[in-house]
């Protein structure tokens, strides 16, 4: 990890925090900090990704601005985190996408829309897009099945590859070896910490997601978004199995498994995106890194529009609006897959990695 202003600021903050330690009951960052006396750049990258941005430490801090020490750990760590996203991005030249990430995501979504519409019109009669199609295979009259399949496998496969490569860049940098990953107890702890968002719990009382008061708004919104996303993924996989192995061709009835999963997932994602979006706009901005607001909001909107367009497609699939809605929905999914490794989405990879490293570290401390 290179040395930057944010890294220097984080190092100075850790020097103050490590002499104070009042916040050690809030989350995993402070106990991890206490295992160290000095902080290399990689340590700071690890701690920044371990931070869940619950913001409890800012409101509890006697050294927060306007105190002359000016400690604002949530903001400093958010800036360091974004630098780790750049640092570990794969392939390296695409790291630049994190510079103006909100713009990059917006452009990607716009280009994907144009591409899908042009593709649809070139591959079929343009009139297909605006006509009514029903019954098995109606979706493929808008976008041919092989094209849909190839595009999704390629883009999603690439996203997974880039995320995995990024993870290993991070893992190596913080000192992990490949073999370390396969520690069952540590994996279990990390998975439980990640899936429950334990460290948005503020030691059991919620976090300061809006202001000095404690709430679980952000935790539940994130849960809704995350588990909604998983349900949508499950819906796609089930639909794939139906199609490929059982030769049941989409669209499926309202009470079929893919549609139920997708509907619940879509609603969850919408609720989650709405909650997170509201917090981004309404919460106290003191602990927020203003220059990262664009990246955060862009991903929330991208996920939210993906969910919304999916639900709209479901609602209007037997009308002549289906073609356009399908094209819009697929455009946003395409954009999401394309930008996944170059958006705020990567936080899931690095934070999980940091939680795993933390579980390993704590385990070795106890042994």
């Amino acid at each position, binding site marked *: 990890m290179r040395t930057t202003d944010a890294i220097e600021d984080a190092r100075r903050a850790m*020097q*103050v925090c*490590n*002499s*104070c*330690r*009042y*916040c*050690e*009951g*809030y989350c995993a960052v402070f*106990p991890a900090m*206490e295992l160290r*006396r000095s902080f290399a750049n990689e340590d700071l990258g690890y701690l920044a990704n371990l931070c869940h941005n619950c913001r*409890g*430490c800012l*409101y*509890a*801090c*006697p*050294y*927060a*601005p*306007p*105190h*002359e*020490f000016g400690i604002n750990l949530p903001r400093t760590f958010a800036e360091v985190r974004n630098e780790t996203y750049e640092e570990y991005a794969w392939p390296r030249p695409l790291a630049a996408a994190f510079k103006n990430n909100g713009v990059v995501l917006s452009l990607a979504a716009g280009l994907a829309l144009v591409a899908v519409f042009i593709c649809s019109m070139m591959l079929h009669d343009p009139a297909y897009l605006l006509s009514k199609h029903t019954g098995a295979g109606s979706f493929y009259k808008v976008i041919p099945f092989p094209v849909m399949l190839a595009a999704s496998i390629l883009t999603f496969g690439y996203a997974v590859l880039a995320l995995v490569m990024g993870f290993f860049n991070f893992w190596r940098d913080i000192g992990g070896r490949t073999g370390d990953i396969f520690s069952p107890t540590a994996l279990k702890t990390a998975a439980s910490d990640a899936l429950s968002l334990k460290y948005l719990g503020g*030691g059991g*009382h919620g976090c300061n997601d809006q202001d*000095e*008061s404690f709430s679980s708004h952000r935790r539940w919104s994130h849960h809704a978004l995350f588990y909604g996303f998983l349900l949508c993924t499950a819906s796609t996989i089930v639909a794939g199995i139906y199609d490929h192995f059982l030769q049941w061709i989409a669209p499926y009835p309202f009470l079929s498994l893919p549609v139920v999963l997708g509907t619940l997932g879509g609603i969850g994602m919408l609720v989650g995106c709405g909650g997170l979006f509201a917090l981004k706009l309404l919460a106290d901005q003191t602990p927020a890194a203003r220059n990262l607001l664009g990246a955060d909001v862009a991903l929330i909107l991208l996920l939210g529009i993906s969910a919304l367009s999916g639900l709209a497609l479901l609602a209007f699939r037997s009308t002549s609006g289906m073609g356009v809605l399908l094209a819009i929905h697929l455009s946003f999914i395409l954009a999401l897959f394309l930008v996944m490794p170059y958006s705020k989405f990567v936080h899931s990879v690095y934070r999980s990695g940091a939680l795993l490293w933390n579980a390993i570290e704590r385990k070795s401390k106890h042994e």
Partner: protein
Amino acid sequence: MLVSVLAARNMIDLGRDYDVVVMGGGNAALCAAITARQAGCSVLVLEHAPRDFRGGNSRHTRNLRVAHDVPTSVLTDRYSEDEYWQDLTRVTAGQTDEALARMTIKETGSILPWMESCGVRFQPALSGTLGLARTNAFFLGGGKALVNAYCATAQKAGVDILYDTEVQQLHLEGGALREITVSSKGFPVTLRVKTAVAASGGFQANLAWLQEYWGEAAGNFLVRGTPYAKGKVLRELLRQGAARVGDPKQCHAVAIDARAPKFDGGIVTRLDCVPYSVVVDQNAKRFYDEGEDFWPKRYAIWGLLVAHCPQQIAYSIMDSKSLPLFMPSVFPPVTSETIGGLASQLGIDPEALQTTIAEYNAAVRAGAFNGQVLDDCRTEGLTPPKSHWAQRIDAPPYYGYPLRPGITFTYLGVKVNHQARVMMEEGSPSDNVFAAGEMMAGNILGKGYLAGLGMSIGTVFGRIAGREAAKVAHH
């Protein structure tokens, strides 16, 4: 006119007659305000600091000392009222009001549930403070989180809090407070008073006042906590006939890093290195047994020890063996490969320091070093001796920390009775003025210090003051 201007700005009507006016914005003040409000009073809190720095010294605290007979969720084992009392007697050398002290200790036994009902959260003892896990309850997030919780609870209950509002004058008639003149955001306002709680701390941030007792030396003191503890309310009360307690020179002071900011440096500037080092004055001479006892039992005397050094400065000197033995502090140590080089960097005479270290090294008797017990590593034939944890200083690099007296709070205060009523010089209690917190801690803490006791006194007397003020206001 002014009143309405201020009211428009703050949505607080200063023309209204509050049942209870609380002077101060820290732990004791907020406990009094909430208690009085819960008893049905209208309550106004006058906080000198702006909102960002609210809470007085409480924002730098982290625990309070609590008597308990059985383990609780946050306290281990038991800590009986008698043991608590013995600890207090020991540190104060008997300079305490036994009846008030015993009452305070007894009351601590029942305050945790009330604090929790006000949104204060606790956590297991902080790392590096294991010695306190049995006796002290730690606030999750520390004292500022506690102040946030109390302020939120108070405001939700309808207490009005006015920030940037400094009490300028009190107008007493006999034992009764009639009016308070304040400067609120720069505007002078006079408030009528039914009852008042004085909980605005000591005068440690008032260097001119400190100089009355310490002379020029006070200029070299660092103030660990709030810069707003100017002691105006205390001075006004004493000037107008309140009975005083406490030696004005006594205070809770520790040795902190001399590079700390003048005010508000808080916990991070403390240094726990003394027992693992030798401490010399600016002439490179040792002056006290660094290894006399465990640090938690001795840290509170080093502030005054350094205050009595020439120029109020001292230097803690150690080698590389000692550095990992204590908690890191905010400023890195001064570092050199030689003792002479270290002395030059610290600004003391290199030869004198070399001589002192050589004499010390020659006097060290080898033993089995153990920081967890009073070990047998000590000096022989050295004055003053180092009784424990004495190791030769011979493994470079060498490290040094400059030390200054860091004053936490002064003990001069107003005398109170069991109802937290301020006592007047002629011996009768005030009609309507109550006191809580550091302003009256001197009743119980004549000298010395016991970790977490300040917050205990503040909480117990804050609640008593709020309750008794409410009774008088209702009457």
